[in-house]
């Protein structure tokens, strides 16, 4: 009988080493694919695109989005890309957030964000967005808080995920009990659309805690 062993004449030790190498390659490939940016579910993209237009999508390349939007993006090391776009208040910021392992390098048009965030100071933005996202997910949000670098300053986080955790939406806003405010009455509201499972600070790109800001601020609950 003619066998592979006869053909290559590998010893047991060599076969074990080859198996190890193959397993390493396969597992690394699987790990890379698992961690690669994915496209967010249609429900998430729809909500995002209602405010950004169809040019912007989680998982699309920076080149595609920059061309379609007609606005240049500025590369921000360790985070991703930023563009300033207009809204009813005249101020709005669009952020393309790169996944771990992609954001420390150099800007590349082929980069694909795994999350897109828009910030606005439009009056009543948070309520409008919260109603819309709640209706789309038919689910109450989970709450958390981002601790900012300025002492005593927090941003509230409320997020929704699709049932199989393929993506979701997080809303952020300035915590009402912050020690200092930039301008009385002005609230910075953010909408962050992400692909994949919500992963706390990694998804939010911040110092995230799954507790209400009131607890972190020492007011208890």
């Amino acid at each position, binding site marked *: 009988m003619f066998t592979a062993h006869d053909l290559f004449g590998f010893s047991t030790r060599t076969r074990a080493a080859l198996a190890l190498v193959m397993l390493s390659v396969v*597992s690394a490939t*699987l*790990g890379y694919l698992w961690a690669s940016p994915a496209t967010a579910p249609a429900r998430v993209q729809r909500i995002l695109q209602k405010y950004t237009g169809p040019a912007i999508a989680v998982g699309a390349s920076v080149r595609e989005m920059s061309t379609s939007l007609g606005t240049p993006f500025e590369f921000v090391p360790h985070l991703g890309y930023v563009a300033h776009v207009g809204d009813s208040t005249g101020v709005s*910021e669009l952020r393309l957030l790169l996944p771990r392992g992609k954001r420390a390098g150099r800007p590349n048009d082929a980069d694909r964000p795994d999350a897109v965030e828009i910030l606005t*100071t439009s009056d009543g933005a948070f309520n409008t967005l919260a109603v819309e996202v709640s209706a789309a997910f038919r689910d109450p949000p989970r709450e958390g808080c981002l601790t900012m670098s300025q002492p005593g300053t927090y941003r509230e986080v409320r997020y929704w995920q699709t049932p199989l955790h393929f993506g979701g939406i997080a809303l952020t806003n300035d915590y009402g009990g912050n020690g200092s405010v*930039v301008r009385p009455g002005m609230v910075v509201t953010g909408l962050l659309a992400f692909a994949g499972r919500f992963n706390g600070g990694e998804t939010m*790109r911040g110092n995230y805690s799954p507790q209400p800001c009131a607890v972190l601020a020492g007011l208890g609950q």
Partner: protein
Amino acid sequence: MSAMGGRVLALLLIAQACTPNPRELARAARASDSLTIVFADSAARRALAAEPRAPTVPEHTPHACDEPATSVAFLALWSGALSLTLPADFTPIDTARVASHGIHRWLGADKSTVVVRRDGATYHSGWTGSLTSECTVDIAGARAHIDLADATVDVPDYVVRAVLERPRMLPFVFEGHARSVRRQAELLRALRSLSIAESAWIRSVVLE
């Protein structure tokens, strides 16, 4: 190495790919945090710039009833039957001939002017602009109606105008054009120092 060892290594590789790097995450958090602060500051500045402005009446505009205190040096001046104190940089610009017609004029270093003359003019006249305040007081033994106005068009022109009246006598008019609100306050104070000799009033009796 057994197949079990290979599986363990594979799991370790997967775990390494999935484990967050705290240092990298901290850098991302700092970058996001900084951007949010810059965005909030920028939005606040735009909101402030878009706020409706207060009416353009300058701050500290004097009121016609005020007798404002000023910090500049005043000098007592005489011109015929008139005397008043004016800021020290004012000088008379009348020739003797003009003065003989009852017109007394002074010019300040900043081109502000003061004129005192006998005139039958009425209140609220003598300039084109908005009246900012008015008041009636006693000055130099006469009933004086004071108007303060902003007649600024191309150059600053803040008006102090007063009509000083005595029954059956031709009124005296004090008219100052100031180049600044501060100067307007100085002219208002000068007005309060105006003194008119009794003989001048007698000469201006209206013959009925």
